[in-house]
């Protein structure tokens, strides 16, 4: 079987057994990128020479029998929202076209220390705002299963590259479903950890209280391996929590006994496509056959999830993105032209006798801010900045932001109650398989609803995983598992149980060679 179809765990075993080298593995994935990424457009930047040099260096250390990190030469793709020292980090935005951070994100440091081969930076919706990767300022990523369709988003590049055999492992971020939804639509395994499980230092913030970094991979075992590297307290991130990190890569293989599964009543209502519902119910049957019991539960405030999310996330985003004003970094408008235009506007108004209007013109600094931001941000980012600015404004704060915080607490309470009765909540990730590129771009509201099943986990701060559970019209479907805070181990073990009993995770789009 082609190395492009093998799991990271299998590849690591082969690396350690000397059956394959990191250079060979890296080269194989680079070849796949070269051959197919012109169509998939999962990567924004790939540096083959640097990746191969790194692979060679790891191979040399392995040959010399020196100790290697947990990822010992496996290629890993990085969402371009994570800072990589000295390398362009665009966040999918024109605003940061030339931004080269002088530091690595904590997870990048950890990946390097674990001897990963960083193979490239993947495409995303601008600043992770979107559910289709169409909001990138650079390119639209396609779904490897059907190039006319979206890979989902915002970690569309991260999911597509794993599905397309361009990287066995990749790093995504999830603010409202941005790992789980693309994982579901691309047929890969994607885990959003508990808020605080993984350091956010070096993750360019979208919504700080919701953002989490997590793994995308071909199997739950691989996701466990990668999470073990990523997780842990970081003194540079006060919101990262000091909870011991289990050896996920070892415990993942242990099946869960007497598993109690909750099915959320509200998940099976209007909007859910029958084929998705069937795949989810079939998956539940698989768990039953593995000894699980199923309980009908309710998350009564879940229906406010999307509304709550679209107040909290844009509010934080409006603040986090204020720094891109063209003064210290970020795109700055052409100043000479801007000053000349301003003078021209003033002269015209004065000539027309409109002195009051001339007086009311922006001063150059304000005009520079406005121009730079107007030119640097795309429409969805602007929409969210405006939403958030509005929600935080005097007179609206209580009715929107504060109310949303209250609902957020209720959503968390729903989960606390539910997890008294069940160990895991099982349900759909999306209402449908991948939709067509362009289908929702002019309808922001329907685009926002793609987060329907995923936002609540972010609002509650709990972990969730998406695993392949079926196909519809030759498109993959995802199953979402959710667990109480810091129970990533439970998620991974349950996902692995499922993958031992099914082969949905072993389906590949045609572009991934069999041999």
């Amino acid at each position, binding site marked *: 079987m082609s190395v492009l179809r093998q799991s990271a765990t299998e590849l690591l075993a082969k690396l350690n057994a000397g059956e394959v080298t990191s250079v060979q593995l890296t080269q194989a994935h680079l070849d796949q990128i070269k051959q197919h990424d012109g169509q998939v457009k999962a990567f924004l930047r790939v540096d083959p020479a640097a990746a191969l040099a790194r692979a060679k260096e790891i191979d040399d250390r392995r040959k010399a029998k020196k100790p290697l990190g947990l990822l010992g030469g496996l290629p890993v793709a990085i969402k371009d929202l994570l*800072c990589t020292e000295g390398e362009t980090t665009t966040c999918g935005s024109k605003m940061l076209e030339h931004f080269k951070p002088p530091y690595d994100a904590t997870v990048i440091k950890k990946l390097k220390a674990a001897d990963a081969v960083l193979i490239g930076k993947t495409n995303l919706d601008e600043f992770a705002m979107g559910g289709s990767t169409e909001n990138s300022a650079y390119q639209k990523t396609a779904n490897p299963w059907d190039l006319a369709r979206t890979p989902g988003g915002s970690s569309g590049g991260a999911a597509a590259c794993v599905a397309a055999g361009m990287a066995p492992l990749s790093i995504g971020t999830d603010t409202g479903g941005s790992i789980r939804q693309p994982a579901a639509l691309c047929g890969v395994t994607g885990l959003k950890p508990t808020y605080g499980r993984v350091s956010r*230092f070096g993750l360019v*913030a979208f919504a700080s209280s919701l953002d989490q970094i997590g793994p995308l991979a071909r199997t739950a075992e691989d996701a466990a391996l990668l999470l073990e590297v990523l997780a842990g307290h970081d003194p540079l991130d*006060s919101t990262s929590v000091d909870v011991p990190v289990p050896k996920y890569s070892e415990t993942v293989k242990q099946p869960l006994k007497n598993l109690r599964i909750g099915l959320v009543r509200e998940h099976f209502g209007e909007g859910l496509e029958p084929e998705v519902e069937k795949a989810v119910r079939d998956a539940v049957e698989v768990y039953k056959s593995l000894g699980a019991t199923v309980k009908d539960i309710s998350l009564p405030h879940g229906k406010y999830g999307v509304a709550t999310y679209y107040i909290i996330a844009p509010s934080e985003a409006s603040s986090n993105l*204020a720094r891109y004003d063209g003064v210290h*970094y970020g795109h700055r408008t052409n100043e000479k032209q801007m000053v000349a235009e301003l003078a021209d506007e003033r002269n015209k108004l004065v000539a027309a006798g409109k002195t009051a209007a001339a007086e009311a013109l922006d*001063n150059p600094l304000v005009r520079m801010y406005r121009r730079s931001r107007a030119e640097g941000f795309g429409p969805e980012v602007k929409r969210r900045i405006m939403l958030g600015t509005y929600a*935080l404004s*005097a007179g609206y*704060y209580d009715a929107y932001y504060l109310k949303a915080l209250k609902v957020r607490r209720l959503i968390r309470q729903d989960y606390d109650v539910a997890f008294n009765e069940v160990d895991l909540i099982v349900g759909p990730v999306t209402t449908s398989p991948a939709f067509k590129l362009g289908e929702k771009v002019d309808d922001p509201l329907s685009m926002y609803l793609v987060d329907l099943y995923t936002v609540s986990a972010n609002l509650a701060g709990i972990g969730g995983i998406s695993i392949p559970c079926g196909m519809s019209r030759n498109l993959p479907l995802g199953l979402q598992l959710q667990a109480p805070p810091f129970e990533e181990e439970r998620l991974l073990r349950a996902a692995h149980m499922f993958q031992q009993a099914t082969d949905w995770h072993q389906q590949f789009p045609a572009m991934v060679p069999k041999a």
Partner: protein
Amino acid sequence: MSEPYTIIIGLEVHVQLATRTKLFCRCSTKFGAPPNTQTCPICIGMPGTLPVMNREAFALGLKTAIALNCQIARFTKWDRKQYYYPDLPKGYQISQYDLPFSQDGHLEISDPKGRFKPKRIGIIRAHLEEDAGKSMHDEVSGQADSKIDLNRTGTPLLEIVSQPDMRSPAEAKAYLQELKLLLTYLGVSDCNMQEGSLRVDANINLHVDTPEGKVATPIVEVKNMNSFRAVERAMEYEAVRHWEVWQETGQRLGQVPKQTRGWDDTAMITRGQRHKEESSDYRYFPDPDLVPVVTTDEELAAVKSSLGELPAQMRTRLEAKYGIKPYDSDVLVSAGQGLVDYYVELADLVGDGKLASNWVQQDVMRTLNEQKVEPAAFAMRPKQLGELLTAIQKGEIDTSRAREVFLEMVASGKSAADVMKAQGIEKVDESELIALCQELIAANPKIVADIQGGKPQAAGNLIGQAKKKNPNINPGRFRELVVELVGKM
């Protein structure tokens, strides 16, 4: 004080806390480094960076707030104050909005000169925030280059907001002096106004007496005051200006937008600053990058016990224990802990608080000033000075000669006894003194007659003659003898 109005002043003081590093990163806070050399990705707000609170800064804030008798919140959080400005790289300042870590305290002020009665100035709140950078630019014409220095960005600031409890410029100045003294004693700030580590903004208006009762005039905020004296002058200027504006316009509080004026210390006037287009909406909200700060009973107790003696307590103690006046205790305490320590040691040695106070305030302080040394580094220790004062107490030397001896002790580093010996100063034997007295009485019948005729001050002439004959005589004792012997005649 017959003006038909009352002056109402409230002060907002920003104090840079004397931490080694900034509030949310580990950059140095040292003043005076070349521009933009004390910055890091965190304090310049680079994408992806996160703030982590400096516990030392929080502890200094806590210490100050407790000394200001504030209520300490057991749970406090950080908020983002959002506005655009080139010296604010993140587009927001991390501050505290609705749950400051401390509020509702007070500071006692008094005037040793008695211009106002001792009073208590309320503290509304004290909260922590990060400082912005410094910018020098020309945003109006757009012609000049703007320059920004971010060394100061992220330095911890404690903002102390008083109640509008001050009723005169003198009270405002006294409040600032007492606050600065307290901060200095606590060691939480160097309070250097020139370097910007202590900044004052004032809010002032008048309550005018009218037939319908007191009427408040619009509140004006005054900035750019670079010394306490400037604050006092600016408040004096503003009070008069408010009165004139009131007489001219009759404008009341709420009828016009709040105005900001800047003090021009050269012209000695305030000038209106450009109006902001609309009232600012800072869109405060809790900073999601930081976790709330919880203060435990143990921490509070530890800070309280570390406070030491505060200036007000120290003044009271000096007055009670050494019998000195409030004016004197104020001079001593205002000069700092070092001088107080010197004084206390000296006063204990000589057993006379007033004598020690006089010498410390005059001779010691003057010499410290001349030598530009701290009391602890002053070569003449209390023990050595104490020997000189003891000689005065024993009548071995009079005060004016003792001053000369003091100067010689400073110059030569010799002991009091050695200097006195070198200058031939020694105690004159009582019998010798009586003989000299009798001799002069016999030689000056006219003066004796004057004394007998009810002019005791005439004895001064005899003392002068006696000193010429023997410079070592104790003038006090000699006067007593003159009176005694003349009385027996």
